[in-house]
């Protein structure tokens, strides 16, 4: 059914994570050390160690409630971690806000789509371009030359980005009126507009049919190849995960229970147990 994508050789890093061989000599784009968060006594994420290569496509999987989205919220500082450190491109993110994390090159999509529903599709992308095409409020109000220049650039960039998913014709539509699949694609485009070096996708294939998912897989690879960025995705569709992810990390009850390539994960008994439950001993 789905096309097989060529997988690179994975090599271990000193931090016990594996990255594609092509990325091994560069600073990992993301490195979590002993990351953890408690919600009023509940240990939502515990001792998470993770590293990602600069052009790696990695998967974060696990049963419902395992804490996957919480990890994304930690990485983007929607939640402040209780313990541990997050390095983005080797830079510590302690004390950074969500907006600053975006400027450091991390972009994300949301499990329950979060578009700017009352704004047009093009404006949604332009909001993503906020820090790429800056000009002051005053030049905006008085339409100074920087306004015209930046707006023109923003328009062109927005159209180019919409072109990735062939959405240029929808530029004037209201984001909230788009069909579900188009909303998911627009969210990815908006995230790409921030010019990220790490893209976090939270269940990008949710609600998509098999042919849409297959198209999405090709697009994920295409995005990585075009922009040369790392992509970390949460997904329940195992075809997609096993198809595109080079490194996979399995989370259960907030802890990593396995890391490895698709083949390693598929045959790992701990993973099978987490998903299907323990076999009854005879």
């Amino acid at each position, binding site marked *: 059914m789905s096309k097989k994508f060529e997988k690179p050789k994975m090599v271990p890093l000193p931090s016990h994570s594996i990255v594609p061989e092509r990325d091994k000599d560069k600073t990992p784009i993301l490195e979590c050390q002993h990351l953890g968060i408690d919600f009023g006594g509940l240990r939502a994420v515990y001792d998470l160690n993770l590293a990602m290569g600069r052009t790696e496509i990695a998967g974060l999987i696990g049963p419902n409630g395992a804490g996957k989205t919480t990890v994304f919220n930690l990485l*983007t500082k*929607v939640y402040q971690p209780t313990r541990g450190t997050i390095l983005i491109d080797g830079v510590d993110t302690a004390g950074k*806000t*969500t*907006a*600053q994390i*975006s*400027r450091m090159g991390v*972009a*994300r999509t*949301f499990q329950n789509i*979060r*578009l*700017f*529903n*009352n*704004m047009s599709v*093009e*404006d949604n992308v*332009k*909001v*993503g371009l*906020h*820090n790429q*095409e*800056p*000009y002051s*409020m005053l030049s*905006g*109000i*008085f*339409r100074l030359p920087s*306004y015209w220049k*930046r*707006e*023109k650039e*923003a*328009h062109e960039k927005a*159209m180019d980005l919409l072109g990735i998913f062939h959405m*240029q014709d929808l*530029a*004037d539509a*209201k984001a*909230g*009126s788009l069909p579900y699949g188009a909303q998911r694609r627009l969210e990815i485009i*908006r*995230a790409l*507009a*921030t010019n990220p070096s790490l893209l976090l996708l939270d269940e990008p294939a949710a609600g998509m049919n098999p042919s849409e998912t297959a198209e999405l897989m090709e697009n994920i690879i295409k995005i990585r190849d075009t922009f040369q960025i790392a992509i970390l995705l949460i997904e329940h569709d195992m075809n997609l995960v096993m198809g595109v992810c080079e490194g996979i990390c399995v989370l259960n009850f907030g802890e990593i229970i396995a890391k490895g390539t698709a083949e390693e994960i598929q045959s790992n008994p701990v993973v099978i147990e987490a998903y299907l439950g323990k076999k009854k001993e005879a």
Partner: protein
Amino acid sequence: MKNGKKINSAVLKDYLTYAAVALAFVVITILDKQGFINNSTRGLLVPICCYIVMAVSLNLTVGILGELNLGHAGFMSVGAFSGVVASLSLAEAIPNPVIRLAIAMLVGAAFAAVVGLLIGLPVLRLRGDYLAIVTLAFGEIIKDLINALYVGQDSAGLHFGFNFRNNISSINDLHMEEGAKAIIKGAQGVTGNEKLATFAAGFVLIMITLFIVMNLVRSRAGRAIMALRDNRIAAESVGINVTKYKLMAFAVSAALAGAAGALYASNYASVKASTFDFNQSILILMFVVLGGLGNIRGSIVAAIVLTILPEALRSFENLRMLIYAIVLILVMIATNNPRVKTLISCIIPKKKGGPANE
């Protein structure tokens, strides 16, 4: 696709708004010159201009930024009184009334913007109803403070005093020279104000307000503000500084309200702090909601209609406010109840391109 073609529909609407306002100004001025406008209607012209500016500026916070503000009249009040102090204290230095009015409005806008920033900084992290009650509280505090404020002027300059513990009972307690001029007299407010306001000044202020608000909305900052309204978390995730843009919207809105306040005050011989109370804030909020959240043109129309309506109902004497209240409730139900809406759309065929987000 060319850039030029894209911009059209939105920008065209903006130009039409400017044109409509200018046309209305010209028509009313001509009618007035021909003697078609009676005194009571003429008296409404400047207040209507002020209310339009108030409504458009409040729409920036409530409709565009999406935060409920129940104390907008507070900014109007700050602008009104700082503007009056400026215009009265400069009476000798600058005899030209037009320049003095312009200065009064600028001073009013500046003071209101500063107050907006001071208020916004601590409270903008509050959400929804909690922010609403804090803006209400600030509106009341501003009213009380100005009620207790005494300002006088002598050759040494301006003198200020607050009557907190009945320590000031008249302007004489400010210890000024003989023959000093009283400007603000506590709860009495300003008396003997010079009437500087003109309909033309109101028109100019409306045009400036429209220019600022509509251009802001169609710029990077405006998109950031609207993104915060639609989805704060997503806006943060694409790198938008929440505090900065909330404050920006709040301060611009406050500044415009301040200018409107200064104009409003300079239309009357006496001005009291109690004019700018909670009811005034609610009245302006009503313009915004009835005109449509985020709809600038709607705010203008609502401000005009709802200022004229009570006057038009004057022949009903005591019943007029009652009728006004009933009309208000019926309009809210007619525009918001799904069943009534369907009924209306059956009777009146819907206009092409109606509200798309329903």
